[in-house]
């Protein structure tokens, strides 16, 4: 998604004289074209994320539109207080871009795993959290972020969507990828793991699965549409899937929302990353598999929400 992001920001944002792009020393062999397009409004703020985010807040309060870029962990956790106090409390239109959401930097080790980012950010006031599932979502989200008068966090990942005729997809905060059988199991996903899950669902055509993908968090900010809620009430069960820890995540948010709305099906299940850290490493798919975010576990969970297992 990083390349799609670079293309989108060059095409749609760089010419805006108010736009300023700050990077935390990331982007070698990736952002040079962005640097060229932004000219003097491209700033390598160095390995200094707290300062970078504070500077961005200052820029925004003075009428500029800052885009701040780093690896997702460094974008969120190091400058969290600056994000909270300087940006969110003051409702400033800063766009924070975190690359490598989830296990995007899997084999780089645990300091690079962004597994608590949107959960912790979701507790902050005013912040919009955009989580693209597919490359096609990124340009639309770049435009949303640019036009937003509020702070935005854009979590980039790696599109693993299946090559199916229904692509490319037009972005919407909630999309139904598979309109399954009424009363069948419902699956709801956030983030690029949606592509994997989509493929897993397509391999189980007899199950009548409905598959939805959400693009903006936390759930109460952009709640699921009426069609989703009606389908959920009639569904045999609901399974959520995400590349994030369970606490504060998409699954807990959605289930909580539906429960309060009286639309929660009988068998809610969550597939998420356990809080206990893995102690062996590998690429993104390997790390996901270690955490039970794989097709075999999905099948088992699907059986559970279909009523095959109690």
């Amino acid at each position, binding site marked *: 998604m990083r390349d799609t992001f670079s293309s989108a920001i060059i095409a749609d944002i760089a010419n805006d004289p108010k736009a300023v792009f700050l990077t935390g*020393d990331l982007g070698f062999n990736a952002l040079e074209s962005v640097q060229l397009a932004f000219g003097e409004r491209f700033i*390598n703020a160095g390995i200094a994320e707290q300062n970078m985010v504070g500077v961005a807040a200052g820029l925004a309060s003075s009428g500029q539109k800052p885009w701040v870029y780093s690896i997702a962990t460094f974008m969120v956790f190091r400058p969290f207080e600056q994000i909270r106090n300087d940006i969110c409390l003051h409702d400033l239109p800063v766009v924070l871009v975190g690359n490598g959401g989830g296990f995007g930097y899997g084999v*780089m080790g645990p300091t690079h795993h962004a597994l608590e980012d949107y959960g912790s950010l979701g507790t902050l006031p005013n912040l919009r959290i955009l989580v693209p599932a597919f490359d096609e979502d990124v340009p639309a989200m770049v435009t949303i972020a640019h036009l937003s008068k509020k702070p935005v966090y854009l979590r980039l990942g790696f599109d693993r969507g299946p090559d199916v005729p229904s692509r490319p997809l037009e972005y919407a905060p909630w999309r139904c990828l598979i309109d399954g059988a009424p009363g069948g199991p419902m699956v709801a996903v956030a983030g690029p793991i949606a592509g994997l899950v989509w493929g897993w669902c397509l391999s189980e055509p007899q199950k009548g699965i409905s598959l939805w993908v959400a693009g903006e968090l936390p759930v109460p900010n952009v709640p699921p549409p009426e069609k989703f809620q009606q389908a959920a009430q009639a569904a045999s069960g609901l399974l959520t899937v995400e590349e994030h820890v369970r606490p504060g995540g998409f699954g807990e948010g959605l289930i909580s929302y539906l429960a309060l709305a009286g639309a929660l099906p009988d068998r809610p299940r969550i597939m998420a990353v356990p809080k206990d850290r893995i102690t062996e490493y590998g690429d993104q798919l390997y790390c996901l598999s270690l955490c039970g975010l794989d097709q075999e576990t999905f099948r088992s969970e699907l059986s559970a929400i279909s009523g095959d297992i109690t």
Partner: protein
Amino acid sequence: MIKMHHANHIGHLGGNLSVIDLLCLIYLDLMRGTDQLVLSKGHAAGALYVCMALAGEIDEAELESFHQNGTRLPGHPPANTFEKIAFATGSLGHGLSLASGMALAEKLRGGDATIFCVMGDGEWQEGSNWEAIWFAQHHTLSNLTIVVDQNELQGFGSIRDTSSMEDLLKRVRSHGIDCSTVDGHNLDALRDACSLPNKSDGPRAVFARTLKGKGVPWFEGEMRSHYVPLTDDAAEKALSVLQAKK
């Protein structure tokens, strides 16, 4: 180390090559008894794993698993895996605070161990380092030895172009720290700098002038050595150059 990085098409080799000499010296020669090391520039994990293999703490064969699925040796040091790796590093600017805490603990319990903290130069852009240096000096942590791998390049440019911090030593010295500068590839000079009596009652800082990509001629001092993996041809030539130097 070159083989480890090349086999899996891994970048970050430049900063590993700049630090490997000084890291080997510290790990295999200077560290004694309960001395401890914090590798603050976690992206040099490959060099650390090589030191651990040379020290017999992991099997050399395990180095082949570097960056592979199922490895205990990820691109940055892992947590809770090896006794000698006290902290998972990889987010820059944590190591000096960690090492200061370890040095303070050692002082509180009356021990005589030295805590070594190996840092990059770019990571001094993180403000936390300046908080840590104040702290370490204030608490007279003379058992803390900071070694800075001063290769003058960072991820997306040079230190000079990014932050005008080429006078880093002066800035650190201004906090009252005993600072020296040496050729970071001259082991005798490094040993002396780390071993001579500390001229202050606080930590010492050794600024090791190094070359990013050291040992791979067409990588040396090049920005691309930070991220770009070696090609087959480049790896073969690099290994033959090193073999010839043996």
